[in-house]
């Protein structure tokens, strides 16, 4: 397929992997920020090609995974109401809340609909003036412009039966939280290409300078990731720490100005809770007061719904790179994609699910080998 197969060429991939192995004089620990990148790495077995040269830690950039339990419970409460049509991206439906997930709400008669765009939710609101239509506005800076557009249009077009349950987070504060942790192991970052397509990379320059880490804005195809790793390893070997752009076909330093204007028009920075990590100051987006009427939490008085996460779930340690998914005692036993305890086991972008679905063979083999040696 045009513009796809070019970035999956096996010979080029092998050549890049060889160059990374030749360049690295020691093993470097890198973190890919975005869940889409984790998915490609594990699905294609890229980490296996780089054993000994690069260890990949899978970052917190899966929007499904970091949406706090509390917001899921609020979504469930909304979707259960007779007067509400609840709309969401597909993979939020299986994220477990305290009692149940949105799929179960649907099975019990709740109106839950999968949409591909928040603007589809707006259309549903127009078609059902007798219902309240709520859209679950989750995601990083990537989904923020479209979600902002839906709210902006709702106000412009006077669609009063539309509101959003917001759980937006932003990447740079999470990277800082990881880098400033006392037991941080991350030596270089592959920044999320699609987030940077919206935001550019100026926000990353002070982070690279302050923490002396190279940051490479990286795409999502196998060759993108391998090239991103190479650019990062080259900097680590040289001892430099700059922000460089691997994903030049989509990203500019200044980002997408109209998209950023729209985000700023509708959203403002606020403290946000991250599932498994806790509250990170000014790490998320909330609706500005001018758009407060479209805030589902306000409209339906959801603030009283609070929840705390199961202590056994080590999602936080996984999302910050302290723990590999298969090192969690719950992995593959108490926690599987069929019965997920935490969100990283739910989404196909979640590190735990990616390990379970694509990597279990290797971890099983490693465990068997280790067992034989004792």
């Amino acid at each position, binding site marked *: *397929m045009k513009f*796809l197969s070019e970035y*999956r060429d*096996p010979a080029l*991939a*092998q050549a890049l*992997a060889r160059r990374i192995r030749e360049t690295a004089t020691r093993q470097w620990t890198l973190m890919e920020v975005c869940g*889409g990148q984790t998915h490609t790495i*594990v*699905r*294609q*077995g*890229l*980490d*296996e*090609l780089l054993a000994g040269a690069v260890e990949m830690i899978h970052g917190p950039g899966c*929007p*499904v995974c970091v949406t706090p339990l509390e917001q899921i419970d609020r979504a469930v409460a909304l979707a259960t109401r007779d007067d509400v049509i609840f709309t969401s*991206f*597909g*993979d*939020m*439906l*299986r994220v477990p809340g305290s009692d149940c997930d949105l799929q179960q709400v649907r099975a019990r008669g709740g109106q839950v*609909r*999968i949409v*591909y765009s928040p603007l*589809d939710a707006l259309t549903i609101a127009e078609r059902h003036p007798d219902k309240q239509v709520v859209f679950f506005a*989750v*995601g990083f800076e*990537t*989904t923020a412009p479209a979600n902002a557009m839906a709210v902006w249009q709702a106000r412009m077009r006077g669609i009063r039966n539309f509101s959003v349950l917001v759980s937006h987070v932003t990447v740079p504060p999470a990277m800082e939280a990881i880098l400033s942790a006392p037991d941080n192991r991350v030596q270089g970052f592959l920044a999320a290409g*699609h987030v940077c397509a919206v935001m550019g990379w100026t926000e990353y320059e002070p982070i690279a300078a302050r923490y002396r880490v190279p940051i490479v804005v990286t795409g999502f195809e*196998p060759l993108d990731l*391998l090239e991103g790793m190479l650019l990062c390893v080259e900097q680590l070997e040289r001892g430099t720490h700059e922000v460089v752009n691997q994903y030049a076909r989509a990203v500019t330093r200044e980002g997408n100005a109209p998209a950023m204007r729209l985000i700023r028009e509708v959203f403002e920075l606020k403290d946000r809770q991250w599932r498994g990590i806790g509250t990170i100051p000014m790490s998320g987006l909330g609706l500005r007061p001018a758009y407060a009427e479209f805030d589902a939490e306000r409209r339906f008085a959801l603030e009283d719904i609070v929840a705390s996460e199961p202590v056994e779930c080590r999602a936080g340690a996984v999302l910050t790179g302290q723990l590999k998914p298969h090192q969690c005692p719950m992995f593959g036993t108490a926690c*599987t*994609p*069929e019965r997920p305890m935490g969100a990283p086991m739910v*989404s*196909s*972008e979640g590190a735990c699910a990616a390990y*379970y*679905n*694509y*990597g*279990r*063979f*290797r971890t*099983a*083999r490693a465990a068997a080998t280790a067992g034989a040696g004792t």
Partner: protein
Amino acid sequence: MSATLDPVAGAGSGAPAPTIASTGLTCPVPVATHAHVVLGHGSGGKLSARLFAERFWPRFGNPILGQQADAALLEVAAGTLAMSTDTFVVRPLEFPGGNIGDLAVNGTVNDLAMMGAEPRWLTCGFVLEEGLPLEVLDRVLEAMAAAARATGVTIVAGDTKVVERGKGDGIFINTTGIGMRRAGWAPAPDRIRPGDVVIASGPIGRHGTAILAARDDLGLVTTVTSDTAALWPLVDALHGACGDAVRALRDPTRGGVASTTNELAKSSGVGFRLDEASVPVPPDVTAACEMLGLDPMYVANEGVLVAVVAPEAAAAALAALRSHPLGAQAARIGAAIADHPGMVTMRTHVGGTRVVDMLPGDQLPRIC
């Protein structure tokens, strides 16, 4: 108070009850022709008989069905019968490449074929929803008749029920098929041995992608059509060319090639190693799946089979499949191995390895 059609409204209020004359209505005459299914079509009365005589019989008619008895009588030679049943619910009822009718015939006869049985007889049970346009029913029946003819199966019994509007999804069809197993051939997973070759008979991922795209709520426009087809001709060709060396057959419907190879691995006790680069995926399926965040390995097929054959028969098997239009793109996609029994792994495009596991549920579209 003005006359009203509500018989309760006037009662007890002292006003005279309205009469038919006062409302201007005339005595209703039964409608002779319908454009839609009505509850009476399932009554067992004259409407039911007409539905059968005008729509089912002309398409399905044959001497056994013509017996019109409480059960069909089938004359059977000595041998082993294979029997399978399946129920078909699909939205939309009609989609690029087919409709629920040919799906209902092919789905069941393909299950028989995968057991090495030549499909012979089929029963069909219909649940129709009140209000279904009869022209849709006609197209569905037409497709069923064509599919039955193509695979040589005779429709010998059937039943139709009608449910109230809102209690069904247009049409539900159950089909039960009976086939005669080829003597001396019993393809089954427990016959798979390490070293055997895994073959896909054609391009994968078409049916599931076509259905998703046909649902207008996604607004996705593609050229993908369903692959729904009867697989017996391919099975016949395979058996003719390789005989008993065809160890096992499976049609990768729901859950796709990934789930099917997992089932084969688990019930055979061998491992499978697939090669991503040799799995035939049409470009339009790849494109649609990329957009929707789906993996074609898990997307349903309705006209593809996965065959596991002894290594020495692999070339003959591929040639036999490719000699038929349905199998023109047949490809060797992997092998059975002694390592990791019960598990499927795949060499990826870029040369890495990954596990191909069963999905916990439906594939859900990704956020971004």
